[in-house]
């Protein structure tokens, strides 16, 4: 009798442990299946949306050619999109993945080995970044930042890559290796932004003069009569000359350099956005309406530089074909009204 009970208990234990084993196996298989599915569905590479943005940007080349800048071709420069983890480099019809060169979210033209590359964050990252920061220098916030604006930004940065690759800007040319060395060195000197804040933003009379000049430039971009534009430019140049007497030489240089490099790039960016929309409403809101708006640091010179490019369009057509970045935009204006 006892043996029978023991035998039955033994059978029950076996049944229980068999059932447990089955449960454990099922749980293990489930876990493995979820893991495998998760790995397999993991997105490899750059998103379709970002690929489309690059393709659309490239398609604008014939229209950008009409702006007139000689040999300014997007295809000449690798365009890199950084998604926070990896760089995706678009170049010569291929997309290559690599470890990030610049581990930060920035739209820039950056030296990589022996050449300059365009580096921008992916649109999703930029969206997320802007929702955190409320926009960058008030330039890309406001009426929303989407695919068209991203395309315009890519062209802006490509313009910088072209400037740095081909020209000595105001007589200064830096090879990619030199720029890399300069960026890597512990240079504790004042940045261009700091110089301009001290010399312009923090000096009430200088700031007021710049605000007035910005309004004058905005009005001149809208002026139809060429004679009136030329007259306005002469007055503007006189006022700038007076103001700059109160500023240190390095601040004047920073102002001219920023207008020349960023102003022209901003002009290209604005035109690229204009090319993409029929109504021109976004172009009007983002670039023209804010043209007279003062902004701290370098930001205002994007606008004054663009305004000068638009004035040159009126009084010196074809200036884009001839520009070699050896002279400031003010010098080009002076030559055009002489």
């Amino acid at each position, binding site marked *: 009798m006892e043996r029978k009970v023991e035998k039955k208990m033994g059978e029950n234990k076996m049944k229980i442990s068999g059932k447990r084993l089955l449960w454990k196996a099922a749980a293990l298989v*489930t*876990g493995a299946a*979820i*893991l495998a*599915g*998760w790995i397999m*569905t*993991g*997105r490899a590479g750059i998103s379709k949306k970002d690929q489309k943005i690059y393709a659309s940007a490239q398609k604008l080349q014939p229209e950008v050619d009409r702006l007139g800048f000689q040999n300014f071709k997007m295809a000449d420069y690798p365009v890199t999109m*950084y998604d*926070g983890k990896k760089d995706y480099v678009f170049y010569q019809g291929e997309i290559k993945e690599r470890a990030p060169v610049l*581990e*930060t*979210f920035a739209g820039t033209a950056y030296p990589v080995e022996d050449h300059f590359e365009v580096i921008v*964050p992916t649109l999703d*990252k930029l969206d*997320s*970044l802007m*929702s*955190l920061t*409320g*926009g960058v220098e008030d330039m890309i*916030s*406001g009426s*929303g930042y989407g695919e068209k604006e991203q395309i315009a930004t890519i062209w802006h940065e490509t313009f910088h890559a072209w400037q740095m690759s081909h020209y000595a800007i105001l007589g200064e040319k830096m090879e990619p290796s030199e720029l890399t060395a300069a960026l890597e060195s512990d240079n504790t000197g004042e940045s261009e932004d700091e110089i301009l804040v001290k010399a312009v933003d923090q000096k009430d009379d200088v700031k007021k003069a710049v605000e007035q000049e910005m309004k004058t430039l905005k009005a001149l971009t809208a002026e139809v009569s060429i004679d009136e534009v030329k007259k306005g430019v002469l007055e503007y140049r006189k006022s700038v000359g007076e103001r700059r007497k109160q500023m240190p030489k390095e601040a004047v240089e920073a102002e001219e350099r920023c207008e020349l490099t960023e102003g022209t790039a901003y002009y290209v960016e604005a035109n690229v956005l204009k090319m993409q929309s029929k109504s021109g409403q976004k172009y009007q809101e983002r670039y023209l309406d804010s043209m007279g708006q003062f902004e701290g640091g370098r930001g205002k010179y994007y606008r004054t530089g663009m305004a000068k490019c638009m004035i040159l369009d009126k009084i010196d057509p074809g200036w884009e074909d001839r520009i070699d970045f050896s002279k400031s935009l003010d010098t080009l204006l002076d030559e055009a009204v002489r």
Partner: protein
Amino acid sequence: MGIMKNALRERIRRKDIYVVVVIGMIIVMMCMSGAATLSINGVSVTEFEMMMPLVMNVISVLGGGIAVALSLRTIPNEYERRTSHLVWIRGISQWKYHSQLALASMISSLGALFILYVGVLVFAVMRGEIQILLKGIPAFFLFSISTAAVSLFTSAVSLVLPGMAAGVLCTAFMLIGTMHPILETVSGIVSGVARGLVNGVLFAVPNLYGVEVQAANLLSGKTVQVHNILGGLLVLYVCAVMLYVFRRKEA
């Protein structure tokens, strides 16, 4: 199943769950009714399609908070009241006991989440978005994955850590998991030690937002990403494994 049923009955008897749910519903209703002003880039957000993902976010954080609150003390209370001894003498294993209590906490957390979620559906119907009702149930399954994971994680951690430490850890797990994409962006802005720290946190805490947002995608007719759903299920699975592995010494 008896253990789970008893634990659920106790949950229903306790008043704290109702208080939390009522407060949550008031917040949700305020967001949806326009009494609370919401704006992005200075533009008021009033469109239902724009508002829904934001309100879903609010609900997920509230739901996660409720899950932590409901799951944190369930198992430790049973041990403190020595109820566990009555269970051991019946030959019930620790895993079975813990899992049934954890399941009771999870079900009550999901119940609270469902009440908040129904608030969104009611508001959608009032705004004439009736088509959302059809997708409402599958969307809730997606939406509940992260809350279920938070509840299981809390139950597991409460087995090995003292109350306060477990509470802080689980709240951090829930908040960081829900804010994962924001922290990913922050990691790209900061540098040096801060960057290493943010990356470490992002590596340690799974992205709960990824699966939550799929529910909003389903409701608003956007593409649902299977990868993120599987990611959420994987987190849920790992939390269940933690509950199985972690044991109480005094048992």
